[in-house]
């Protein structure tokens, strides 16, 4: 009976899991040491100095400053070291490596919707190829949810109205729990699913086979770009007159705004530019762009963003290539134990 197994540790199935567990193990050792130390001292003292006569009193001594310093500074140093380690892992977990492929996730009461770069869609289950770094761009259609895969040791809230990200590189074939970890209403505990890590060849077969195929987000975005008439103002190609700024190479650039502030053109910025164009006006342009609030769904927004991102830095309009050549460097994440990544299959 499965309910009588006694699990202590979850499986390690991502490149980051080993380091998180190592950090936990070190913390555990530190904690055990201090708990044992304090427990032992207390036990020794209460036995050794137990009251023997009714009118006995203790021997009060004055605080030794060096003792106070010792027991403040040692824990402090330990904690600072652990802080640094934890921060490093945290930053790694927030910055997808260069070879990561972007998937999209949408949280909704009470289900997960996923979209693969190839266009396949899934609900509550996410198939991914072994060894491939995967960046998930996520948003919610209603309340706050949280994408958590314990076996990968990652977790990230999924918020309405903006994007959050997480990434992982699966290192082990198998099926792993996917939980919604942020309380989101009645069926919160049913907002669960699985991440299925497959051999890349099986994954390719799965993609090609029965799975709900569709347009890739970039292609869908390109179509929306013309059907929503974005293209009338944001004409593509250099040197042409346009009513709106060129979106070529926009993503990842610092944009200078009216009033002199600059912002990084990330997903949230592009999303905001579409649903609330007035919030930030690009320097030198008129605030004439209409809002698309309510006219595009979260998924369509994601597709538009994917398309604008795909415009990259290349002079000509890119055609759906995920990454400009030359940026496909191996992950600089610094995580040990990552399986060597087979190139993504396109």
């Amino acid at each position, binding site marked *: 009976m499965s309910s009588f197994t006694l*699990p202590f540790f979850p499986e390690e199935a991502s490149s980051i899991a080993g380091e998180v567990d190592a950090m936990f193990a070190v913390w555990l050792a530190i904690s055990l040491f201090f708990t044992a130390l*304090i427990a032992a001292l207390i036990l020794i003292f209460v036995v050794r*100095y137990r009251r023997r006569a009714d009118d006995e009193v203790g021997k009060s001594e004055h*605080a030794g400053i060096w003792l106070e310093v010792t027991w403040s500074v040692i*824990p402090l140093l330990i904690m*600072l070291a652990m802080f640094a380690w934890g*921060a490093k892992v945290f930053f790694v977990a927030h910055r997808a490596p260069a070879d990561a492929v972007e998937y999209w996730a949408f949280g909704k009461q009470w289900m997960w919707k996923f979209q693969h770069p190839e266009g396949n869609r899934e609900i509550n289950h996410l198939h991914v190829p072994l060894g491939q770094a995967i960046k998930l761009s996520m948003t919610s259609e209603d309340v706050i949810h949280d994408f958590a895969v314990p*076996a990968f040791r990652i977790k*990230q809230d999924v918020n309405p109205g903006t994007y959050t990200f997480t990434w992982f590189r699966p290192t082990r074939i198998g099926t792993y729990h996917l939980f919604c970890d*942020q309380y989101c209403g009645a069926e919160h505990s049913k907002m669960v699913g699985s991440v299925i890590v497959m051999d890349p060849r099986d994954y390719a077969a799965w993609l090609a086979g029965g799975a709900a195929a569709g347009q890739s987000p970039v292609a869908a975005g390109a179509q929306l770009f013309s059907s929503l008439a974005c293209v009338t103002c944001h004409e593509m190609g250099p040197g042409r007159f346009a009513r709106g700024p060129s979106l070529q190479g926009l993503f990842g650039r610092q944009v200078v705004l009216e009033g002199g502030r600059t912002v990084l053109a990330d997903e949230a910025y592009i999303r905001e530019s579409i649903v609330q164009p007035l919030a930030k006006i690009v320097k030198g342009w008129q605030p004439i762009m209409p809002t698309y609030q309510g006219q595009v769904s979260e998924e369509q927004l994601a597709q538009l963003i994917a398309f604008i991102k795909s415009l990259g830095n290349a002079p000509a309009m890119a055609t759906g290539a995920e990454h400009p050549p030359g940026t496909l460097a191996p992950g600089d994440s610094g995580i040990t134990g990552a399986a060597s990544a087979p190139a993504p299959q396109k």
Partner: protein
Amino acid sequence: MDTNSAAALDRPSYLTDGYGWKSWLLTRDHKRIAILYLVSITFFFALGGIFAMLIRLELLTPEGDLVQASTYNKLFTMHGVIMVFLFLIPSIPATLGNFFVPLMIGAKDLAFPRINLLSWYIYILGGAFTLWALIHGGVDTGWTFYTPFSTTYSNTYVVSTALGVFILGFSSILTGLNFIVTIHRMRAPGMTWFRLPLFIWAHYATSLIMVLGTPVIAVTLLMVAVERVLHLGLFDPKLGGDPILFQHLFWFYSHPAVYIMVLPGMGVISELIAAFARKRIYGYRFVAFSSMAIAVLGFLVWGHHLFLTGQSVYAATIFSVISMLVAVPSAIKVFNWTATLYEGSISFQTPMLYALGFIGLFTIGGLTGVMLATLGLDLHVHDTYFIIAHFHYVMVGGTIMAYLGGLHYWWPKMTGKLYAGFASKLSALLVFVGFNLTFFPQFILGYLGMPRRYWTYAPEFQVWNVLSTAGASILGVGYLLPLCYLTWSLFKGKQADANPWGAKGLEWQTTSPPPTYNFDEPVVVTEPPYSYVAEQHVVGQQEVESA
């Protein structure tokens, strides 16, 4: 029976100074108000405890077979709201603090007795709102009221609960205000700052948090209510609002609030250790200042609850490192308490058992807290049972142990009665064992990945959940016992001496129970606290626990 001299006993104690419900409900005596609070928070603790037992019963099996999903959500919400706002926050300050702050500094009462009574009425009003919500069907937002769920999506009684908590906030503010002014202005002659018992320092620090933090939660919940009722957009993402802003505001109060919950407990522990080791707390000034440091630094770390919400990673880094800093003063306290035992004269009365239990459990809870403050680890355990285990260790293993320890320590003073020694030691043991059995498995569950606020869960988590439920029933019995024998002692308990433990402190220099204005003669303080001196005759200890 020296101080309880015949002459002193001729005049009424605060308990016999007037009878009838009016003499209680219109009292301005801080001691009677403390008793009013004691009764009310016990009621709410039992209510919250019943919800906890229902939660544990539901979690006995992976399927949702005891209650429905929406009911389960209401259970943990009401459990959290009641335990935090109606029990733990007022617990030590409003009962033991109310009773003993004036006594320990040699004052006749708190600075504003009427405001003190008002704070109790406000508490009752807030409790009534919460109960009203409960009776009409409850709330299901979690005690954290996160938007936009609470403002837009939940269709339960969010507004009345939020208003209830809003109102409770003012009760807490008034208590804190009263303590601050009292400690500044009402100390007896000779009671300098460094002669204050550490219990007072802890309450001073707590009051600072109450006064500076509570208004923020009040206005935040007001905003939730306003947004929900009037559809003003304040956090609404549909209007471009940011739900994470709510979380900032919520935790700006609620992290410091966890120190409202634990600091008074730490104050109690300092008193207990000093009294039962019969010596001055080692590093008195360090312990005193560490309370202040916790209160101040505690306001700079709230973002550690938002590590994975989409908060900026740079902000997260800052919040993480300051969270580590705030653990240092806690470490100072733990080590100084331990050092106090060295060369003490230690007796194992019930309060001391609770105090020793506190140190162990708080250490575990605190250390796991620092783990959570480590960014890379929170990445894995955020919003899992690891969090649940962490905070029950500090709140239940920490504060409730301290509260029970303090209650047992001062019970003879408050009621003039002694309770049964064997039963009380048994209950201390049951609580300790039951507590660990309930919550230790939850650490493991959390690391395995079991999310919190889950009505159903994956079957492989069941074993640990069964253990936890088993522990909870032991814990429940452990809490039920004091309720019985303490009530029993009121009627059948032996009369207590003025100073049954042979302890130092002004509160032990007046009769048990004290008269209405606390002291028969004006108090003048001439020595530092905990001045246990060998040559001096120490009042023989009464056979306390053998009623």
